């Protein structure tokens, strides 16, 4: 039996339907990310699980119990908000103990649990501090401790890292994942940041316009995107315009250079246009074993990103991006240089 189950969930605000019949089921202990651009319905789904929004139709079950009609304070869930939402009038210890106090836990047990939580988030001795005396990252860790202190059945994270700066974002997401694995708590994480979702999730739900476009493990989402939207949204993607030469042989021309592709659309006709896509990292600026297509072009732009150098190569009409590692012993390529790039035909996606 699935631990968290969402069946035909629909949510409309007036005539605007933001969640259009979503289904998913997850096991206990999974870390699930709802990923998508703003307005895709991911936050609305999370808020319906929390009980802050009531579904127009459909049901939500946790541990087999239908919680659709329950009030938020009856659901036994924990939640971390984007804006921390620590209670400004309470110090860190009282914030963490809030849910325990409401649940009627005796004072000495409460104190022990608060100490345990502060150790877990790496802030021992902070219980007398007030939220305004702490940095954003510290506040969000306290918010996490507050959410998990009452041992909720499900932890809901509503873009908890969005308000933090880049470095803290990375370290805190690793911490969240470590704590989640340590406690084995089933977690639903809402984010619009694909890198965040890919790095910490067991499974990812990619949302688009109120529907699920793809549900799968991070490597499945990245390597085998089910739709053009998923391919574009998750990771960087090159689009190449090509013309079909022979549908039976699966041959195409890319700016006058012939290549074979792994599949063809059913209605493919010779001479017709076809859109091929591929990830920047499957393109190589040097010959590589297994790469059966070589294309020549000129370097249109060079972006130095530290460990990686991103090149934009003009093949004619098409311009593709490719990533190459920075080699400290040689200078990066320069604009206008001629370049031969290679790729494996099996890496081409026909979407």
């Amino acid at each position, binding site marked *: 039996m699935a631990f968290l189950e969402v069946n035909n969930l629909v949510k409309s605000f007036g005539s605007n339907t933001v969640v259009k019949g979503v289904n998913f089921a997850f096991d206990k202990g999974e870390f699930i990310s709802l990923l998508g651009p703003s307005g895709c319905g991911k936050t609305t789904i999370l808020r319906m699980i*929390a*009980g*802050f929004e009531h579904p127009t139709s459909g049901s939500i079950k946790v541990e087999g119990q239908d919680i659709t009609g329950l*009030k*938020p*304070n*009856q*659901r*036994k*869930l*924990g*939640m971390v*908000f984007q*804006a921390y*939402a*620590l*209670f*400004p*009038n309470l110090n860190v210890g009282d914030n963490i103990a*809030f*849910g325990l106090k*409401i*649940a009627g836990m005796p004072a000495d047990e409460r104190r022990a649990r608060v100490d345990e939580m502060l150790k877990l988030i790496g802030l021992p001795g902070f219980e007398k501090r*007030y*939220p*305004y005396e702490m*940095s*954003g990252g510290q506040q969000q860790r306290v918010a996490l401790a*507050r*959410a998990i202190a*009452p041992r909720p059945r499900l932890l*809901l994270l509503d873009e908890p890292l969005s*308000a933090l700066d880049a470095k803290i974002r990375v370290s805190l997401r690793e911490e969240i994942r470590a704590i989640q694995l340590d406690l084995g708590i089933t977690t639903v994480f809402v984010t619009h940041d694909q890198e965040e979702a890919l790095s910490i999730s067991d499974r990812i739900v990619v949302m688009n316009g109120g529907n699920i476009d793809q549900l799968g493990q991070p490597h499945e989402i990245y390597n085998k995107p089910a739709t053009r939207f998923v391919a574009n949204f998750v990771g960087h993607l090159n689009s190449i315009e090509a013309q079909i030469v022979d549908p039976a042989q699966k041959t195409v021309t890319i700016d006058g250079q012939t290549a074979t592709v792994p599949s063809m659309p059913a209605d493919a006709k010779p001479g017709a246009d076809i859109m091929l896509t591929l990830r920047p990292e499957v393109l190589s600026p040097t010959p590589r074993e297994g790469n059966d297509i070589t294309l020549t072009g000129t370097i249109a732009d060079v972006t130095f990103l530290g460990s990686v150098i991103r090149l934009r190569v003009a093949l004619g009409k098409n311009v593709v991006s490719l990533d190459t590692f920075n080699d400290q012993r040689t200078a990066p390529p320069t604009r206008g240089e001629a370049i031969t790039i290679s790729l494996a035909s099996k890496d081409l996606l026909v979407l």
Partner: protein
Amino acid sequence: MKANKFWPWFIVILGAAYFIVPLVATFIFSLRMRRNELSFDAYASVFSDPKFFSTFGYSLTVGFFTIVVGVLVIVPAVYFVRLRMPWLRPFMEFVTLLPLVIPALVLVYGYIRLYGSSSLIPFTGSVLGTDILLTCAYVMLALPYMYRAVDNGMRTIDIGTLTEAAQIMGANQAQIIGQIILPNILVAILSGAFLTFAIVIGEFTIASLLARPAFGPYLVGIGTNKAYEPAALAIISFVITWGAMGMINVLGRFAPRTSARNE
């Protein structure tokens, strides 16, 4: 470049003089009870009058209950309007301004007609009933100030998210208002409370027409019978009011401790 500060200072001094000169004159006059020398005799006379303390004590008590009732009515109202019915806010703004537009005299005549001893709800039939009616009237009078103070207090905290954060941890509405919302807007409530107090202490019309022994009617009564004591009382009233205003400022300094801050 040195800016010409003459005109700004001129206007500030002119404005200050407009307020301060009559006050200084009143103060000096209040010291002249004894012929040809300055003394605090008028103040001694005021403080030796037992009616001063009894009426002041009465107004203090009514003021306290006015604040309590006002908080109990206004805090939940503002909270629910901000949280669940934001479209109702313009209407609330309008309603809370009405006490400034409708004269207290109209209000009290309305009360006497509605709640007179021969009416269905004879509030004025007993002393306690009249005191309750007076308190309710003062809650109305203080509404514009209390409402704005509480509304401003709630604006500084994200009540929507704080409410959700408390709800998901199992808190009910009463626990949320009592343990989270109220403590976070305490400074705002206190500033509203001191304004309410300042209004109640000096109010004359309603207390007088309901025939209650309040401080306002006492002030007026002294004014019609004596020469120097009213001036002394005016100064005392000012000091009390300023004390209340000063408390608002002092408490305002503590505001950052309790209000939410976003980086």
